[in-house]
């Protein structure tokens, strides 16, 4: 089983390498090798699927984190003594999932996020519910941390390698109020890297989300200089059900030249760097502990009381 963190790092490299190979094949002697380029496109698809999964998970994690921070801040403003009774009442509902175990604040549980995004059974409504009780229900999942992680690792992997890309239900419309301090976002439609400070993630998420809807409108034509003159059809060798691929191909692909490819690769590099550095900062891990040390440290004393309970 491939370590999914490695996957995330390798995915960006593989995408760059694959694009470079496709570009180089256009200048090779003997014309474009259909077989080789078909295989490269499969790698590109696999890497992209994993990267997209990682990105959605990252976005969801950050939103969860922000949501919890908001709740925590609100809690801090309240009188802790008055709060105790409320908490006990409320925890009765939330902790029904917990089965008597201590609540652990897992502000950004990937375990939470992954099943939500990968299992079609989760409706947007269910997701909202999840978010609302994130602090509590996260615990339930955190308890089965290892199991769920393993499960989500495989779900992760399955979705990354499955032909049909499963992302449909990730509705972030409810998260329009999410604030983030600083986020680097790569818009796969326009290939623009945006650094958002104290702004909304909503638009960017939707931009990424909506690319599927835009897919039919884009003509997935690759500038095969060598094949263009062929009397038969231009062989777009992209396999079926790879609707996301046009993100990597210039929509106005008639002039997909070297500078565009280089830009693409450098954009991916800077975009990924932003994402990766944020990951490193928050020490998110997909394998075990989803609790960021920094996050815990930033919790107020009152929330620690809840944790201890």
């Amino acid at each position, binding site marked *: *089983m*491939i370590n999914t963190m490695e996957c995330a790092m*390798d995915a960006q490299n*593989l995408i760059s*390498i694959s694009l470079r*190979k496709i570009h180089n094949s256009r200048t090779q*002697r*003997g*014309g474009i*090798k*259909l*077989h*080789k380029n*078909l*295989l490269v496109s*499969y*790698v590109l698809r*696999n*890497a992209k699927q*994993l990267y997209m999964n990682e990105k959605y998970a990252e976005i969801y994690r950050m939103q969860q984190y922000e949501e919890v921070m908001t709740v925590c801040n609100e809690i801090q403003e309240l009188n802790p003594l008055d709060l105790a009774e409320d908490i006990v009442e409320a925890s009765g509902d939330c902790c029904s999932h917990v089965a008597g175990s201590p609540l652990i604040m897992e502000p950004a549980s990937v375990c939470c996020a992954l099943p939500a995004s990968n299992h079609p059974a989760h409706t947007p409504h269910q997701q909202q519910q999840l978010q609302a009780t994130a602090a509590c229900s996260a615990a339930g999942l955190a308890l089965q941390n290892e199991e769920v992680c393993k499960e989500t690792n495989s779900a992760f*992997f399955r979705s990354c*390698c499955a032909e049909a890309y499963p992302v449909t239900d990730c509705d972030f419309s409810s998260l329009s109020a999410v604030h983030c301090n600083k986020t680097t976002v790569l818009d796969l439609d326009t290939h623009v890297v945006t650094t958002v400070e104290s702004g909304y993630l909503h638009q960017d998420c939707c931009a990424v989300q909506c690319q599927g809807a835009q897919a039919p409108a884009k003509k*997935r034509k690759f500038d095969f*200089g*060598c*094949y263009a*003159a*062929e*009397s*038969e*059809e*231009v*062989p*777009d*060798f*992209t*396999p*079926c059900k790879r609707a996301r691929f046009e993100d990597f191909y210039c929509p106005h692909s008639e002039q997909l030249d070297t500078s565009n490819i280089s830009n693409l690769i450098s954009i991916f590099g800077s975009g990924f760097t932003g994402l990766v550095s944020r990951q490193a900062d928050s020490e998110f891990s997909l394998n075990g502990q989803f609790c960021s040390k920094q996050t815990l440290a930033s919790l107020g004393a009152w929330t620690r009381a809840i944790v201890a309970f």
Partner: protein
Amino acid sequence: MAGGGGNDVQWCFSQVKGAIDDDVAEADIISTVEFNHSGELLATGDKGGRVVIFQQEPENKSQPQCRGEYNVYSTFQSHEPEFDYLKSLEIEEKINKIRWLPQKNAAQFLLSTNDKTIKLWKISERDKRPEGYNLKEEDGRYRDPTTVTTLRVPVFRPMDLMVEASPRRVFANAHTYHINSISVNSDYETYLSADDLRVNLWHLEITDRSFNIVDIKPANMEELTEVITAAEFHPNQCNTFVYSSSKGTIRLCDMRASALCDKHSKLFEEPEDPSNRSFFSEIISSISDVKFSHNGRYMMTRDYLSVKIWDLNMESRPVETYQVGEYLRSKLCSLYENDCIFDKFECCWNGNDSVVMTGSYNNFFRMFDRGQKKDVTLEASRESSKPRAVLKPRKVCGGGKRKKDEISVDSLDFNKKILHTAWHPQENIIAVATTNNLYIFQDKLN
């Protein structure tokens, strides 16, 4: 050790052909190796479009232990680089495949192909020439007819052996994509040629017409999911052929069923092991070569990491699987980066179908004895190229503690690869092509 007939065979170095120079000229890279039906002739094709044919010397009566050596018999330029002006495409002269025709008369015939054009070559010997012309001098100049006073009948006189290669047929303009295979039918009248998306049937005498028998090109190229990687006729049944795909499947087709064999008669496919899924699953499952056994009961396929033997009567899974280099699985990422993952290794059967052989990296090649369930890794190198020196088995250590005499997978030279190997149809003589050298090994005779 692997061998035929159940006895342990020790392989010895016999000969090496090609330049010793480490600086390899691209044109000298060997791209195909093939014995003829008797094994007397060994043909190689290279990237420069040349064909070199070696002939085995008759056995030396004074040294019965030694089989005859292979010496250069004929060299000719089969294909030249071309340019397709209509499509603005350069057509490489590299010889992709050579296939011998069975010998019918004194001359030898072979088919050679590059990416687009197949040629039928006649290789014939000339060891005598006519002398004593009336109107021509011996050097070819015409004589003044008025000086002719007597008439004589020209006679044949012996001369130094000359081997001539002449193109007898050129089969062109039938393939849009790159030809990867040719295969002569057992009827000795027809042959097939396969490119990425189509298989065509030719008659050896007819060059201006070929029949398309398989076409997997989708109506919309955006829906393309697989290509044809190899094709071969059945050795005995002239109506049957197989073609392999980049998805790891093999389809067996019967030309009696219909004119267009898009619908297969049998589909050979092994389900993928989900635990081995990776970014590169599609690449490593692509079949690079398919070969029928001589008896026609089995076929062998080569993918990136393994060799599989299929029983033609069982489509669900291969009957035997041999790992060629499982240690490569952990290196797939870097092999993808340096393009090695796209290398197309070939495989071959020995004469009695008891042993199969295929190449690998670091100039290693592997033999799998099907009967004895043994396998051996040998190396083609200049260092072990002393006459009749016995080849020492090699071993690659995938990971963990490296034993003595083992080679770590990280020390393998991925630029030294053996893609093409051939086994003499009757004897234990093998031809193994490294980048630009041809090694000939034979079993040790006592």
